[in-house]
């Protein structure tokens, strides 16, 4: 540091300016990248991931965007997302209404994946969860109108398992039945055949990503009957049997005593 002060000052100024420039550049870069990665984590509900895909957040940490799954898909179901198309650029997706998954038993896309973004432990395609079909168009679905369209039900590869037809009373006519296509989330793989085959101009049944389709209870929720079943008996023992209201007639008093009368303890009603 024996140089002239003036030169020192210039170089210090240059250095500071350079440092500020670097910090700004890196800041903008980081911010931009951060925003992009946030945005990439919310992909549209109509774009489904291939079979065995990890949950979206994990998928984005795993998929190298190489396209090997796309290449090995025999039905050209899968595509790589372009920039600004919705899913993170370069990641594989399919749109059920265009080309649904044909559920190959050997699952070539999963076999092709080098990174494990498509989970190798998936060996039975009927166990995959690409999404879950939801009958969203309850005002347009022909079966809801009382017709027997049944196309989604017939086209489902897991016939009578993933979608069943449930008979209900036709409230409109008052004397007929309606057969409601009912999706069973434990069986539905989200292949999208039902959405593809729906005869309406806009499909009444749509495959949604599982987390979107199923909803989610609060993690602290406990269903009393489930807990009771697991425990084998009621969890709350020696429950205090509070008096039932309504024993107002002479035969029964609110505080014990005589048994309820024949009409179930209520005063007989005579209009």
């Amino acid at each position, binding site marked *: 540091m024996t140089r002239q002060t003036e030169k020192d000052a210039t170089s210090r100024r240059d250095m500071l300016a*350079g440092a500020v*420039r*670097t910090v700004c*550049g*890196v800041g903008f*870069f*980081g911010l*931009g*990248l*951060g925003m*992009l*990665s*946030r945005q*990439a*984590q919310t992909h549209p509900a109509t774009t489904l991931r291939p079979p065995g895909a990890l949950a979206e*957040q*994990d998928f*984005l*940490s*795993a*998929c*190298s*965007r*190489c*396209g*090997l799954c*796309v*290449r*090995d898909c025999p039905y050209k179901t899968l595509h*790589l997302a*372009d*920039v*600004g198309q919705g899913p*993170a*650029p*370069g990641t594989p997706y399919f749109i059920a209404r265009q080309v649904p998954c044909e559920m190959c038993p050997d699952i070539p896309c999963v076999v*092709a*994946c*080098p*990174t*494990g*973004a498509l989970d*190798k432990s998936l060996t039975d395609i009927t166990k995959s969860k690409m999404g879950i079909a939801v009958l969203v168009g309850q005002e347009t679905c022909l079966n809801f109108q009382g017709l027997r369209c049944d196309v989604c039900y017939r086209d489902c590869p897991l016939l009578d398992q993933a979608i069943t037809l449930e008979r209900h009373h036709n409230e409109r006519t008052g004397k007929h039945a309606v057969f409601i296509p009912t999706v069973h989330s434990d069986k539905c793989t989200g292949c999208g055949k039902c959405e593809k085959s729906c005869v309406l101009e806009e499909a009444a049944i749509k495959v949604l990503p599982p987390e979107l389709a199923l909803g989610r209870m609060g993690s602290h929720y406990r269903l009393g009957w489930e807990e009771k079943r697991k425990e084998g008996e009621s969890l709350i023992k020696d429950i205090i049997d509070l008096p039932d209201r309504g024993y107002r007639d002479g035969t029964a008093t609110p505080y014990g005593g005589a048994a309820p009368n024949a009409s179930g303890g209520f005063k007989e009603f005579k209009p």
Partner: protein
Amino acid sequence: MSRRPGPAAVQAKGWLAAHKWLLLRRASQTLFLALFLAGPLAGIWLVKGTLASSLTLGVLPLTDPLIALQSLLARHPLHVTALIGAVIVLVGYMLVGGRVYCSWVCPLNVVTDTAHWLRQRLGLRDGVVSSRNMRRWALFGALAASALSGTIAWELVNPVTLTHRALVFGAGAGWAVVAVIFVFDLAISRRGWCSHLCPVGAFYGLVGKVSVIRVAAPRRAACDHCMDCYAVCPEAHVITPALKGPRPIILAGDCTNCGRCIDVCPQNVFAFATKGSQQQGEFVP
């Protein structure tokens, strides 16, 4: 602005010899692209996938080690195929030179080289000059973003893989990125992308620190200081140590082993060599 390098070498050794490594490099870039394109275009599936991950002849898995690193930082335990692929690629570039990826494989190299050629032809000034360290910050930023966001962050914007994907899978918006890089290098900053900003290059530059194959200056005593090598080199700062330093060899990781200095030198100062071959002292021509 430096003068246009080349004519002296062409005069000294003929056009072909003065463009040997450039032609070989273009052939290599074309070959790599052709291997990836032979499948989708002609149905000859020698190589499947993209530069991110690929499968050659159905047996050889290759994965970009930078993508693998980001994935690991995003806390994804990579499947063994990708790990093996990343190690193969890493070891390969440790042998032939880290940034050989940049100059012999990367599809953007042709774009930025063309921009630079045009810039030289038009006699444009250097424009905005950012620090060469910027790319290391960008690399650090990309890795940090991956770790923090739990995604392979750089792949959201990486122009290298975006371009390659656009070529191999025909994605439309990838071309816009290519155009932006071209205009940036042509009109805004001289060698702005590859030599200053690209974190992929920075990563392979770090890999290249240990690489075996190097450009050496065995006949540096014959150098007549025409400066053509400096003018042609995308990373000119790497040359000085080889010409003036204790060992007549380029050891910097930034060197892309493109071989253009070998081409344009009328005195044949430079040659490819292995790391150990050029020892202390002067190598007598």
